[in-house]
């Protein structure tokens, strides 16, 4: 009887189960079933990579024919590099010694060369809603979350082979790791152009397939000189003049990691600025084409650098709490008092302001937190009061002039 009833409701129960299971997995993220389902990832990634390597026999043959030009460039750059390297050992020891001395003199922290691990890419999922790269080394090889990942790329501007940023490790298992590429929608990092005042935040959530976006670029920095006004000013310049103007912009320039977040070491090449983006409030934005061609990535290098100590040990009391945003509305004490007065039925005159000694400096507030609330003894109400007194006096004088008796 019950079985018959259940059979009749089979469809309804199935729909409810699927919907409830999915929603509960999203809300209660760390339950055992979720972990069990997630663990199937390793098996499928291993099989996918096997198929990839089998298919790449055919695909790479075609790609190699197609990319003959890039291979030739690569070979030339390697040959050039070898020539340069032959000269380098003569200078490197003396420079290293000099650098050590200068660092000690200037009190800089000693430069650290991080150890690294080479890993093979198992799977690249760029078409999914959360872009990830799976690599074949994990906890057993010493990889930990938040370690930076770099890969070999060719700088198209000069044809040189460079080690550019791929992303960072976000999860590890015994024999594999999940890498969050810089074009992942949840990726952010600090970037800069060395020796300039160009600092920005790079985000993978650009809305463009294989590009990242730079946010919070200072308004005064020129990215695309043609977009300063949006209209041409004056006569059309000859070609050499146009290139002179373009030299002020930052299009085509490379951006590097800034190490400001404590995760990535400084000066890792990230990509090239290709276009100025729409303004975001008072800041500019720009699009960056990463050096790494993610769809062709086969091997990566994991830098064994854990986040800087200060990132993990930053004390809570040193955190800055901004109660009012910088560009938000400010509540001046005068306005607060006035609004209180309006609300108050018994309207009483404002108390006379306390005399302020102009020589005595105002004592600094004890709390160092960056709060934009102005203390009640600030000068604003006093000035307001003074202004109103001046207005009263001038009215009085006018009245006397009009009516001398």
């Amino acid at each position, binding site marked *: 009887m019950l079985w018959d009833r259940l059979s009749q409701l*089979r*469809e309804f129960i*199935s*729909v409810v189960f*699927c*919907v409830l*299971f*999915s*929603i*509960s*997995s*999203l809300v209660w*993220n*760390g339950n055992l079933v*979720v*972990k069990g*389902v*997630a*663990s*199937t*990832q390793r098996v*499928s*990634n291993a*099989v*996918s*990579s096997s*198929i*990839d390597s089998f*298919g790449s026999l055919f*695909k790479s043959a075609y790609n190699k024919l197609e990319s003959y030009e890039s291979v030739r460039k690569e070979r030339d750059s390697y040959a050039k590099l070898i020539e340069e390297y032959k000269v380098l050992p003569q200078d490197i020891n003396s420079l290293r010694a000099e650098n050590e001395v200068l660092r000690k003199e200037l009190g800089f922290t000693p430069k650290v060369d991080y150890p690294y691990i080479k890993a093979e890419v198992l*799977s690249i*999922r*760029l*078409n*999914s*809603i*959360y*872009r*990830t790269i*799976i690599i074949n080394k994990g906890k057993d090889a010493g990889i930990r*979350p*938040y370690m930076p990942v770099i890969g070999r790329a060719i700088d198209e501007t000069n044809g040189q082979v460079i080690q550019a940023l791929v992303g960072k490790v*976000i*999860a*590890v298992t015994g024999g594999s790791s*999940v890498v*969050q590429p810089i*074009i992942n*929608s*949840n990726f952010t990092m600090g970037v800069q152009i060395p020796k300039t005042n160009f600092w920005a935040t790079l985000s*993978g*959530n*650009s*809305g*463009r*397939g*294989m590009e990242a976006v730079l946010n919070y670029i200072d308004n005064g920095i020129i990215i695309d000189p043609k977009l300063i006004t949006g209209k041409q000013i004056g006569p059309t310049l000859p070609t050499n003049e146009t290139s002179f103007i373009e030299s002020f912009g930052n299009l085509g320039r490379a951006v590097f990691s800034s190490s400001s977040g404590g995760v990535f070491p400084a000066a890792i090449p990230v990509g090239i600025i290709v276009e100025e983006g729409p303004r975001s409030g008072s800041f500019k934005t720009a699009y960056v084409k990463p050096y790494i*061609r*993610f*769809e062709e990535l086969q091997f990566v290098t994991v830098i064994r650098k854990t986040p800087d100590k200060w990132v993990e040990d930053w004390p809570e009391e040193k955190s800055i709490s901004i109660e009012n945003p910088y560009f938000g509305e400010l509540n001046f004490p005068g306005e607060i008092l006035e609004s209180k007065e309006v609300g108050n039925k018994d309207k009483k005159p404002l108390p006379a302001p306390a005399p302020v000694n102009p020589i005595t400096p105002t004592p600094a507030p004890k709390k160092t937190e960056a709060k934009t609330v102005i203390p009640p003894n600030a000068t604003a109400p006093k000035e307001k009061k003074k202004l109103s007194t001046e207005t009263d006096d001038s009215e009085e004088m006018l009245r006397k002039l009009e009516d001398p008796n």
Partner: protein
Amino acid sequence: MILERIVIGVGILLAHILNGTNLFDIGTAIKPDFMILFVIFFALRKGGMSGLWIGFIGGLLTDAALGGEEGLGGKVYYKIGIHSLSFSIVGYLLGKFGRISYNENFVSISIFAFLLTLVTRGVTYMLFSFFFHPNLNYSFMATSIYNAAIAPLTFFTLSWIYKLDPTSEGMR
């Protein structure tokens, strides 16, 4: 009955594995979504319940492939439930209500594949935005067009493997 389910299960696994490979890439990361095609095929041929369960299992595998992310305190956060919900809903509704308007020909298959890929990815995007954050990089059109282009061949292959000819007895 059990053998049939095992064969369908193997098909789901194969679709999932093919989604993880780069064999079918065009240009920069334009890929088809074989799992959606698989769900659409079974929803149209076998009805709502098949669409629901194949969508659910295929969606769980797709969610598993998104991987975890270590957050504060070393806790790993997963994204299980997004695709399982969107695939199962679309599979069920298509099998329940969409079969009436479906005719077996190249044009119809391509249109169905295009529209349903678009809808499924739209639902997935909305769920992801609601539970996590808006993802501006998620591809809608390119994948839908790719799926529409390969759908007739995929349907023909699947019909041959699973012996699910649309004109056969008991299909409708």
